């Protein structure tokens, strides 16, 4: 190929990639991927329409798949495995992403110390918090700003009877609250009936007068289930509910005990993995007296965005100058925490591509073998008047049929993962921090759309080259064998 031809080809390739990329990113984002399902079926329908209109002998192909049923099944098995694994993995990532996106109220603004992008490394000066909360745009109740002063900390809690070889401690995320009632109002979380928020004191007397008072806590539903599993066998047998901690249950913490006063309705948010307690009690107990987070309730989402701009200095004419802080609307903050799922998504795409490539090799083998066994049939079809492109469509349809069958079964298997409870970390990417979260795997139409599309793509790519070789056969030479 001379230089001129090369540059034309390169230019065409660049144009093609430029044209296709936006569609690729649009369709393969988890939000829009459900649209791939009608695209897949539409494409398959189009092929079938061509088969019908061009009178391509599809019965011949179907019969061939039945006759070589072992090869068909083995090839379909490769499709099933790749699609099922991919769908399960994407469901895991989708669950993480959904969790991060579903957390947070658009009218809330999270204020952290300057430079902090994660609560775990924030360190707010207490003396500045009052002034920050008094700014215009913050909703007021009973003439007081509606805000939540919080101290986010991670507790390393020993597991009562760890399974040998598994972790001996659980990292527990604890949120110390200055005023639990205000915090509940800011975050809009209620309690499951039968529970109550912790008292003003944050502690209650221990039944054993020789022991220190019990520290009152409320739990997210997810962590309540996990902590129930961490209890000793004896405690599990005595428990009223073996699956989940309930109001009145206690959690040992060295010489102290935490008592559950309520379970929060937090499912589907990152708060589901948290333990909330009175900051003035839990902070000194764990040696953390500073605040990490101030959550302000703005009058509306628009005002929340203005407050974010005001505190971060994005608005040059109207910026907060008394202290330097970092601020995000709560929804933006939790969206930024889905960086981990993006990293996992990239890893999954790479794995899927490589696995898909392996699957393509398998399909190609099958189709090349199918063609080599049917050289005389192809010659006969050509002599009967079937044009080259009809032969191509005929063999391509065969491979697409296997791909569709394998893809659909793979999607069904992947769907079995839907709703499973899992744990992982979400975080903003750069540096330490991140939150351990409990979430549910979500295999939705978007995930199924990606699974089915990958399967169909494998079938298309794996079938196209052998089908092209089949269409090149010359009728008489084929009949001679």
């Amino acid at each position, binding site marked *: 190929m001379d230089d001129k031809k090369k540059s034309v080809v390169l230019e065409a390739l660049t144009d093609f990639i430029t044209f296709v990329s936006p569609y690729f990113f649009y369709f393969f984002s988890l939000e829009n991927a459900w649209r791939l399902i009608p695209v897949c079926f539409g494409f398959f329908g189009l092929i079938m329409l061509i088969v019908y209109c061009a009178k391509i002998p599809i019965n011949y192909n179907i019969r061939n798949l039945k006759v070589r049923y*072992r090869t068909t099944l*083995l090839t379909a098995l*490769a499709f099933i*495995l*790749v699609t*099922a*694994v991919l769908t*399960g*993995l994407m469901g*895991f990532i989708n669950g993480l992403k959904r969790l991060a996106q579903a957390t947070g109220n658009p009218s809330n603004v999270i204020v952290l*110390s*300057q*430079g*902090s*992008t994660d609560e*775990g*490394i924030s*360190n707010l*000066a207490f003396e500045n918090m009052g002034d920050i909360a008094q700014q215009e745009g913050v909703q007021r109740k009973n003439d007081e700003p509606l805000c939540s002063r919080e101290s986010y*900390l991670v*507790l*390393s809690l020993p597991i009562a009877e760890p399974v040998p070889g*598994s*972790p*001996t*401690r*659980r*990292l527990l995320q604890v949120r110390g609250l200055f005023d639990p009632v205000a915090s509940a109002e800011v975050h809009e979380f209620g309690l499951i009936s039968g529970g109550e928020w912790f008292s003003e004191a944050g502690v209650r007397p221990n039944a054993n007068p020789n022991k220190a008072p019990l520290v009152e806590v409320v739990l997210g539903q997810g962590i309540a289930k996990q902590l129930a599993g961490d209890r000793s066998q004896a405690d599990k047998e005595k428990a009223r509910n073996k699956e989940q901690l309930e109001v009145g249950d206690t959690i040992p*913490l*060295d010489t102290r005990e935490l008592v559950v006063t309520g379970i929060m309705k937090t499912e589907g948010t990152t708060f589901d993995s948290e333990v909330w307690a009175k900051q003035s009690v839990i902070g000194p107990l*764990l*040696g*953390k007296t500073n605040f990490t987070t101030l959550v302000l309730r703005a009058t509306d989402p628009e005002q929340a965005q203005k407050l974010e701009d005001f505190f971060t*200095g994005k608005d040059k004419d109207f910026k907060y100058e008394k202290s330097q802080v970092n601020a995000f609307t709560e929804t933006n903050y939790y969206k930024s925490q889905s960086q*981990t799922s993006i*990293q*996992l998504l990239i890893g999954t795409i790479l*794995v899927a591509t*490589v*696995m898909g*490539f*392996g*699957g393509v*090799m*398998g399909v*190609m*083998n*099958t189709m*090349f*073998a199918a063609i*080599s066994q049917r050289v005389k049939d192809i010659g006969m079809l050509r002599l009967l008047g079937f044009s080259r492109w009809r032969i191509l469509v005929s063999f391509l349809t065969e491979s697409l049929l296997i791909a569709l069958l394998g893809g659909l079964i793979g999607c069904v298997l992947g769907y079995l993962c839907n709703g499973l409870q*899992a*744990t*992982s*970390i979400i975080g903003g*990417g*750069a*540096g*330490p921090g991140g939150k*351990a979260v409990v979430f549910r795997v979500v295999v939705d139409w978007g995930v199924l759309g990606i699974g089915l599309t990958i399967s169909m793509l494998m079938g298309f790519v794996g079938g196209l080259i052998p089908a092209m070789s089949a269409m090149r056969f010359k009728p008489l030479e084929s009949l001679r064998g």
Partner: protein
Amino acid sequence: MKFFMLILKNLRRNMVRSLLTSAGIMVLVFVITLIWSILGFLDMATSEKAANFKGIVTEKWSIPSQLPFSYASTLENGAAREESDVKPIDSMTWQFFIGSVDKTNIGYSTFIFAFCMEPSKLLTMMDELDSLQPGPRATLDKAIKAMESNRQGIIVGQKRLAAIEKKVGDKIKVFGINYRDIELECEIVGTFPPGRYDNNTCINRDYLNASLDAFKAAKGRPHPLAEKTLNLVWVKVPTKDAFSKMSSQIDNSPMFAAPPVKIETASSGVSNFLAAYADLLMILRYLLAPAIIITLTVVISNAISISVRERRKEMAVLKVIGFQPNQIIFLVLGEAILLGVMAGAISSIGTYYFVNRVIGGIPFQIAFFSSFPVLDGALWWGAAIGFITSFAGSILPALSTRSIKVVDVFSKVA
């Protein structure tokens, strides 16, 4: 030898099929090599050593652990009070400094995560740096000497250095994120060897502590974190018994009441940190890797089944000229295994050299591990996977050749 040549000839006869099958094996072995390397590395990090193992002393309840620096000297001594008490062979303190080279724009390209420690401990206590080859060790030693003579000297990982667009010899100002209002003016005196510490930075602990003292002198009050600067203390002990004794010394010491401390083996500490990733690792270990191996077996099985079906006549001829059924089985198995072993070995050995030598590790962030080397085991994994999957995939098609009856085949031909 003749048998081997026959196998080779058969593989060459249908080059397209052999190449397609090899390509399928190679890509799938590539993924398995990456997954097993990540899992193997984490397994090594969480498995206890029999001797010279390390313990980590941290705050008993909270993460991140924040202890007063006054604990350092006692803990470095293993809290030994009596002559008969166990003392560590070596020890090291870590103070984390999280900062940015740009005060207003904090992100991947400006971020600094540093261990503040005694520079000399880099070569004796840090995993992997304590077992460097003479060349890289000498280079790092030179940088350590520079840090010791200039306490503002820092060592920066190679990827971090590239991210902040600096080079050795440059001076940078690091604005504290966890230590608010602490700004460190540093000079880059060297880099870590490529690999595990690519994204980390090492600062001389004396410089951080002096900066905190300077803060107190300037502001008339100690820094809010002044009593919480010590994050971890590492101790190296010779045996498990010594570790148990030291553990008891630390637990019973009256020195560490507020806040209390705990000691755990390094493997246990890492294992606890990785607990949040347990499901992800389980997916990799028990779902992805087996699914790839099964896919690989299916791909090989398919290719060999097709090959056997296409060559029924040829096998009948082999039987006529005196080949025993078992020899034909070995012929089919041999073709599959040769293909599997060769393709698998090429893939995993290629992955080993490409990932370790060219891209410097598998870039995948899990907890504090940002990249993983392909383990030495990869040099034989590919061949082993190729052998096992090709054997499993071809045994049934190979056994099916026993049912080929010469009379049947030739009656059809006739």
